């Protein structure tokens, strides 16, 4: 019963994981015999400006995404959780972007942010504002790429907060209200602490997701201008499949995995303490 899954996973999941670590100690162009070079690839990393820059770009991308997306999602969840009309319609509309094809979104965003003919600069023109060159400006390119991700996942993230909010017993707010606690006080003392499990899930999955951005960057900027949007994920793709440095790319892949594992562990430790209000 387990056989097909174990065999398949051994071949397409476990073997690749082992091989990528082994390859990271080799130099290989996909064709000739791999040459063992020990730790050379890892030693070269520090002096590789492009790779170091791509690591910086990755953190920049994640930091642009996560705070904005998380705060917006929480705000929307609070709004949808209030007593409002057409709640289901709003919820459905917010989740709509989640399943959109990122490649198509990349194409659409390129058009919206086109410096001359794009919707955004046309709109800014109405108010006499000169829009930036967006994707061809190395300062703006990364925030624009990040905005696709924020647009796509804010509503999706909202659903997890909404589920978390609905699990908080109403009695807690009633009791706090009787004791004269203000609304902001209730938010920081009841809502936020009790949302911790939802927050942990949201942060871990959205950070891992952000580290893996590929499609939108490939279509919108291909890592440019001047390498300003090449994330580590994209750099690994370029090293392996355009430069054909399979060994060096494998080293980068191991580094990426180590970074993700470390961040996930830190988040889990940070959120380990749970708040429990016993009102039985």
């Amino acid at each position, binding site marked *: *019963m*387990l056989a097909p*899954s*174990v065999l*398949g*996973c051994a071949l*397409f*999941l476990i*073997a690749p*994981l082992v*091989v*990528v670590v082994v*390859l990271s100690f080799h130099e290989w162009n996909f064709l000739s015999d791999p040459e063992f070079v020990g730790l050379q690839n890892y030693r070269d990393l520090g002096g590789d400006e492009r790779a170091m820059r791509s690591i910086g770009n990755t953190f920049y991308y994640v930091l642009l995404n996560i705070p904005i997306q998380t705060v917006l999602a929480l705000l*929307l969840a609070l709004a*949808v959780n*209030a007593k*409002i009309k057409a709640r289901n319609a*709003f919820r459905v*509309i917010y*989740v*709509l*972007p989640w*399943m*959109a*094809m*990122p*490649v*198509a979104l*990349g*194409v*659409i965003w*390129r*058009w*919206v942010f*086109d410096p001359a003919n794009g*919707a955004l600069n*046309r709109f800014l023109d109405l108010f006499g504002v000169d829009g930036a060159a967006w994707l061809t400006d190395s300062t703006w390119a990364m925030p624009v790429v990040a905005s696709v991700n924020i*647009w796509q996942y804010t*509503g*999706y993230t909202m*659903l*997890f907060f909404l*589920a978390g909010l609905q699990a908080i017993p109403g009695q807690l707010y009633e009791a706090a209200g009787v004791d004269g606690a203000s609304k902001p006080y209730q938010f920081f003392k009841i809502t936020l602490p009790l949302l911790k499990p*939802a927050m942990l*899930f949201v942060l871990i999955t959205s950070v*891992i997701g952000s*580290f*893996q951005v*590929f*499609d939108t960057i490939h*279509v919108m900027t291909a890592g440019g201008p001047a390498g300003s949007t090449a994330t580590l*994920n994209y750099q690994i*793709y370029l090293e*392996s499949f355009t430069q054909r440095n399979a060994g060096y*790319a494998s080293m980068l*892949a191991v580094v*990426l*995995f180590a970074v993700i*594992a470390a961040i*996930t562990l830190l988040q889990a430790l940070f959120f380990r303490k749970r708040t429990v209000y016993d009102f039985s």
Partner: protein
Amino acid sequence: MVKRILLYLLLVAGAVVSVGPYLLTLNAAFKSKQEILTSAPWAPPENPVLSNFADVWGRYDFATFVLNSVIVAVAVTLGQLVFSTLAAYAFARLEFPGRDMLFWAYIATLMVPQIVTLVPTFVIIRELGLVDTHLGLVLPFVFGFLMPYGIFLVRQYFKTIPVSIEHAARIDGAGTFTILWRVMVPMSKPILGTLAIISFVNTWNNLLWPLIITHSEATRVITRGIAQMQSQFNQEYHLVLAASAMALLPLVVVFLTFQRHIVRSIALSGMK
């Protein structure tokens, strides 16, 4: 009162931003090449044309791209459902040495991004002689990129089904596969629906793997087709936007048809 107005302003602003890009794209897809460049993007087309769609279907083998995407996404979804269900049952119900260790080993791989295993996976597919084939597109998705998640999702759900139901079926003479097919699967429809949706969407939208493993027109999927159009004609917005509209539309229709189920699905997928 002011609070209510602010609340609805926030809600409506969120809705406009969520739907805006879809509407702008659909709107632009019906404008001629000239009109896209001269008119305001939010103005409705003055002379709606269908030529952009005809051009995409005519200049490219777009029908083949769509067919390939459908074949691959359906094959991956079916493979996911069958193999995840079998493995999930083993992890949830069967007793064998090292079971929990093996299960947690699967779960640990959930943190592994697709790109990390990409070079070895490519090499394995190459050694199997499956480069530029449909099978080469499907296999790593079923067993590599998606399987641990599927097993996790279904196993957690199976755990919530009382064992006593199974015991009753066994006393009536049902074997393991009968129990799985007649008892567990019918009782797990919500989670299997969730898994089907997630598998289909992920495969349909993925660019990275097709980009690496396919090169001929015969195996090109939509994501690759659009990425290629974009790099060939990056200023010909009328073509790439019409193609994007066609790539987005099927999932929007699926979404609106099954919206209740999908919204609940996502919540289930985050269940721990």
